[in-house]
């Protein structure tokens, strides 16, 4: 169990604070944010390479800030992996055992199991330079895990790999985490990676902890405009709460049906994910749980399996829509043509401004 409470840390003029979060044993917590958001500062504070100005970092109830790095028992896989290029794969993997004088019978079974899961048993006598990118990742993971860390810190470890290899390693990390019951903190700017691996997500922006919570919650209900923008949501419009279940949205010149009722008169932002906007045909029956909008398709980006559409409404607002590629033909969607879409009430989310 990692607990961070009211943490403030500073590097030069950059200040990170206050951060409070907890990582439950055996779970994976992703810290996401754009570059310069404070991800690596947070990481340095946990790791022990940066001083903590205020607040606590506790691991299994023990105050980490009093311990030197080598006694924190944290497994660390940095972005560049940190493999020792002058040592063989075997010597890399046994580095912690030799540093701590752990005898073979103690680490042997775990090492054997990790080699088996990751499939790198055949690489032991190779030099680091001769390994492929994916092999290096596996060696770095095993090296960190064989030291039996109480917490595993992954700092964008897959960013140098191509997409297909990256996805393969996600599966592997997931498997390792479940089998070994690892407590993992993953730092990444890749949202897909965070969604794939994490149970909980913390969003850092400009050194502030903007949102922490279940990944589904962050996906569906961003807590602030900054988070929504970081998540790549383009469909964000100012609105004002009206009668329960309705929002005044001047951008569209209509009232939007929404699920949760808001305080009347409150100034808000309303948003919807591009993939949650539903394309409709003129003769589709009206549904009580959605708001219909019409407009013309200003531009279409064909992404292979799916497509991104820009719908310009008569009021001038621009709506981004993601739909399956086959819809383009079956709904006869073309640039410059008119179209109708529906905004499902339960997919619209609301942000207090």
């Amino acid at each position, binding site marked *: 169990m990692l607990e961070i409470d009211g943490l403030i840390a500073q590097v030069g003029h950059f200040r990170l604070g206050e951060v409070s979060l907890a990582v439950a044993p055996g779970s994976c917590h992703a810290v996401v944010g754009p570059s310069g958001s404070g991800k690596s500062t947070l990481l340095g504070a946990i*790791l*022990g*390479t940066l001083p903590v100005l205020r607040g606590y970092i506790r691991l299994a109830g023990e105050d980490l800030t009093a311990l*030197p*790095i*080598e006694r*924190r028992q*944290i*497994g*660390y896989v*940095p972005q*560049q992996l*940190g493999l*020792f*290029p*002058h040592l063989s794969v075997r010597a890399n993997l046994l*580095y*912690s055992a030799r*540093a*701590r004088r752990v005898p073979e019978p103690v680490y042997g079974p775990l090492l054997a199991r990790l080699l088996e899961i990751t499939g790198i048993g055949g690489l032991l006598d190779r030099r680091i*330079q001769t390994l492929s990118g994916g092999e290096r990742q596996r060696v770095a993971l095993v*090296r*960190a895990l064989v*030291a039996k*860390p109480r917490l595993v810190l992954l700092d964008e470890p897959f960013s140098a790999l191509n997409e297909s290899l990256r996805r393969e390693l996600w599966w592997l990390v997931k498997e390792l985490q479940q089998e070994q019951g690892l407590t993992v903190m993953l730092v990444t700017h890749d949202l897909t990676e965070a969604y794939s691996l994490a149970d909980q997500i913390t969003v850092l922006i400009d050194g502030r902890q903007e949102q922490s919570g279940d990944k589904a919650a962050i996906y569906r209900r961003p807590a602030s405009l900054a988070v929504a923008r970081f998540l790549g949501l383009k469909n964000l419009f100012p609105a004002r709460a009206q009668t329960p279940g309705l929002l005044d949205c001047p951008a569209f010149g209509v009232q939007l049906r929404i699920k949760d009722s808001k305080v009347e008169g409150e100034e808000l932002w309303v948003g919807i994910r591009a993939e949650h906007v539903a394309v409709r045909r003129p003769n589709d029956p009206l549904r009580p749980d959605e708001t219909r909008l019409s407009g013309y398709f200003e531009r279409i980006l064909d992404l292979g399996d799916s497509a991104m559409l820009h719908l310009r409404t008569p009021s001038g607002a621009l709506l981004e829509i993601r739909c399956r590629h086959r819809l383009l033909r079956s709904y006869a969607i073309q640039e410059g043509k008119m179209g109708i879409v529906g905004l499902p009430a339960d997919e619209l989310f609301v942000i207090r401004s």
Partner: protein
Amino acid sequence: MSLKTLGFGVRASIVAALAVLAIYAGLILSLLWFLDPEILRRTLWSARSLFSIRLSLYAATLVTLLALALAIPAAYALARYRFWGKEATEIVLEFPLIISPAALGATILIFFNNPVGEWIQENIVYFVFNVAGIVLAQLITVLGLAVRMLKAAFESVPPELETVAQTLGAGRTYAFLTVTLPLAKNGLLAALILIWAKALGEFGATLMVAGSMAMRTETLPIAIFMRLSSADIEATVALILILVVIGLTALLIARRLLAGSARA
């Protein structure tokens, strides 16, 4: 680029580079005009030359060891930590590169004329016009370079590797010995060789502090000065060639070591 686009400017700049090559190579090769194998042999085997060679090798080796002993920790601190006086130290390291060796040597000599210096000479080691003076003059001349080169060697090792070693349970010293030192090895060896060659060729500061006394403080560069002053050209050429061969060998070894460490 395709050969067709190789314009006049490109060719002129390449010619300039080759002119630089020609100047230095030509100078060295012109020595061969006065190279008489018999005189070369006789000069090298004379007691006076052998003394110079032995003295130079002894002094340069001692200087290199002393410089490394101080420069390794100092360079590591400059490469890794922030501390009070760091910037001043880095500026001071370039002193010997920019200040005349004559001025440096004269400063050392003058230092031993003040009360502190006099006390040191009377109670610890007598430096002026002595072998200890040669060592001191060379040490002061190469120490800045030594720290700079070792700092570059340590900086070529990502600090992250030390952090990772520490997360794996290594103490700071264990991490330094098992990760930093082996990875900086080539850079350290190259520095060692270049410092040694530089100490071997030191002239201005040595001349000031230790003077030019035959069979006493006559290092190879001083010997060249003395032989040339007595217009003994053939013997001078012989001594120059020894220095050039040693210097060139050191340079080639150091370049290979540095290229190797850049690849690793």
